[in-house]
């Protein structure tokens, strides 16, 4: 049996209601956990893009791609390994304001991690960090020591290193 691997899935779709349901059902039926999910506009007008991260075997991945592409409103689906993509995740931390002044260490952490202070008020301050998963994990670990009031992170967004021939493909659909 082959091993589970982390795959990033890019799905180009029509911008229609209900598609999220169809796509997530494909994973749910097979008991596959979606690690992260992001949907957004894509480089093509009127075409949406889903970016998902899953941990499954390559043969499972191929079958799932087939099932996804089979959905009428899916234009094209791709899957990529970690080294084929450039990706970012983003996160927000909310932390008590007093810590910012009392704990010098926090200021160092913020500086070294290239995080950005979004807002500061009397009760709390918020910092934002975009980066690879490990960078965010590291920042989370370092800040946990001091106490985090709130934490949230986004789904992954990714672009491929190689060209994705989706525009050519879309043109072919139109011809």
């Amino acid at each position: 049996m082959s091993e589970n691997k982390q795959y990033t899935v890019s799905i180009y779709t029509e911008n229609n209601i209900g598609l999220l349901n169809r796509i997530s059902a494909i994973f749910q039926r097979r008991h596959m956990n979606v690690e992260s999910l992001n949907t957004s506009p894509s480089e093509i007008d009127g075409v949406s893009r889903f970016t998902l991260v899953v941990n499954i075997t390559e043969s499972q991945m191929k079958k799932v791609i087939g099932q996804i592409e089979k959905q009428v409103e899916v234009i094209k689906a791709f899957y990529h390994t970690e080294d084929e993509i450039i990706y970012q995740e983003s996160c927000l931390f909310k932390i008590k304001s007093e810590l910012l002044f009392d704990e010098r260490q926090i200021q160092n952490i913020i500086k070294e991690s290239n995080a950005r202070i979004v807002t500061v008020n009397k009760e709390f301050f918020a910092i934002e960090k975009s980066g690879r998963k490990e960078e965010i994990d590291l920042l989370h670990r370092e800040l946990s020591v001091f106490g985090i009031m709130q934490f949230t992170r986004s789904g992954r967004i990714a672009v491929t290193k190689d060209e994705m021939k989706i525009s050519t493909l879309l043109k072919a659909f139109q011809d």
Partner: protein
Amino acid sequence: MKETQTIKNNTHTSQTTERISGSEAVIKCLLAEGVDILYGYPGGAIMPVYDELYKYQDKIHHVLSRHEQGAAHAAQGYARISGKVGVAMATSGPGATNLITGIADAQIDSTPLVCITGQVGSHLLGSDAFQETDIVGISTPVTKWNHQITKASEIPEVFAKAFYIAKSGRPGPVLIDITKDAQFEEFDFKYEKCKGVRSYKPVPTTDENSLKAAAELINNAKKPLIVWGQGVILGKAEDAFKAVIEKAGIPSAWTILGASAIPTSHPLNVGMVGMHGNYAPNVLTNDCDVLIAIGMRFDDRVTGNLATYAKQAKIVHFEIDPAEVDKNVKTDIAVLGDAKTSLTDLLPLLHPNSHTDWHQKFKDLYKIEYEKVIKNDLHPTKEGLTMGEVLKEINLQTKGEAAIVSDVGQHQMIACRYAEFNKTKSNITSGGLGTMGFALPAAIGAKMAAPEREVIMIAGDGGYQMNIQELGTIFQQKVPVKIVVLNNEFLGMVRQWQQLFFEKRYASTEMVNPDFVAIAKGYHIEAQKVSERKDLKAAVKEMIDCEGPYFLEVRVEKEDNVFPMIPTGASVSDIRLE
């Protein structure tokens, strides 16, 4: 409102626009798609459409089923025998959810359906209003496509798309949900048939190299075996298929839904594969050197244990749906495309062959199956009637011309094993979902779509009662279907499993049945019951000779089993004969 007559007949699309209500637009869309019959059940949220139907009764025939599940199955029966899109309609909430079993059945058996449901007014959506259910959400996993319409102006485009999607490529069910306000709203109607959807490619392009590679494997095979499925029928590829197997001389076996694509008596037809399939094709699956799958999807009921399925063979898969390739069985060569085109293109690449020795193996194994199973089923010597001999009598009297609509259970396996088919699209049964209650309503749809054909429904006492209310539809619509119930007073198939695998603990499988003949007569359907062999022939004759609908109950042996059988998880070559 002045009506401009834009739809002259059922096949023309309307060119000019006219101002009409959403519900009238629904009817005009159906007419433009050539729909002249639909099955359904009214209710509050779909009443505006029903009101319009009243006006259009001379153009479009609405069949009032007695349960929405019956409507969906009837539409399936209609679609399966005609190859056209079946249409079913229901109100919101319970009406819509009652359609779901039929939709799920159509999805797994690739049956083209367009289902229309009414929905509460759009201002009420999401408020748990009276009879509101999220039918789009509920039906998502079991539809090829679905859509909710909240504005009348969306109706033409969505309907055009729905029919296109339902029937193109690998067919399937589509659901359109229409809010009540959209049914009332007036708009400028204009209909254009859908010719394509950007994100949807119904038929993949066939790669010439894969075709050549497939031909080479087939030409060099010493022991090739074809397993064909419904793809041959759905793709209207029967003639091309016959030409291919005849030229290459390949023994060919069918999946349950592939039955009838070529006549049962065809010398290259070696029987059914799968759990209750024939001995030879199952056993020899694990002996062939090239397995050619055509329009079938390696369902687990066909393959048994995948770890031991045709491991020695090279696999060639002709398939329209790319997602089926390598899904269950890893192929060596996949030929994507529709069966008719790819088989037509394959033909000139094939060398003529006869594989005489290889055929002999099938004949030898058939003899074993005949002695151990078939003889007892068709020519029993013990007292009780067998299901097999009923089928044999029907074959004799219909000369293999009838369409057999079977329900789910032992009788289904017997019907599929023993029915003789001379014509394609003659085996209508619930394959992938195994839906008890399918047969009676499906037979109604089948008979209405093909009134010139003899349509005979075969059900068990269990499944018959799952949609027995459709006798009312038969009576009201005067549909001359022939209803045969093989009554063993058990949920036979489950009882067989209990006997073989649960130490004869017959938990809740015994049925105390009503007087079926009286029930049929209550619906003014001619009826008869037979319990003895000597009466069978005359009873079948009376049924066939009857011009109207007819009900025949045959009391069969209570504890007969269906063999051969591949127990779940076993290998196809470990098939049991007793």
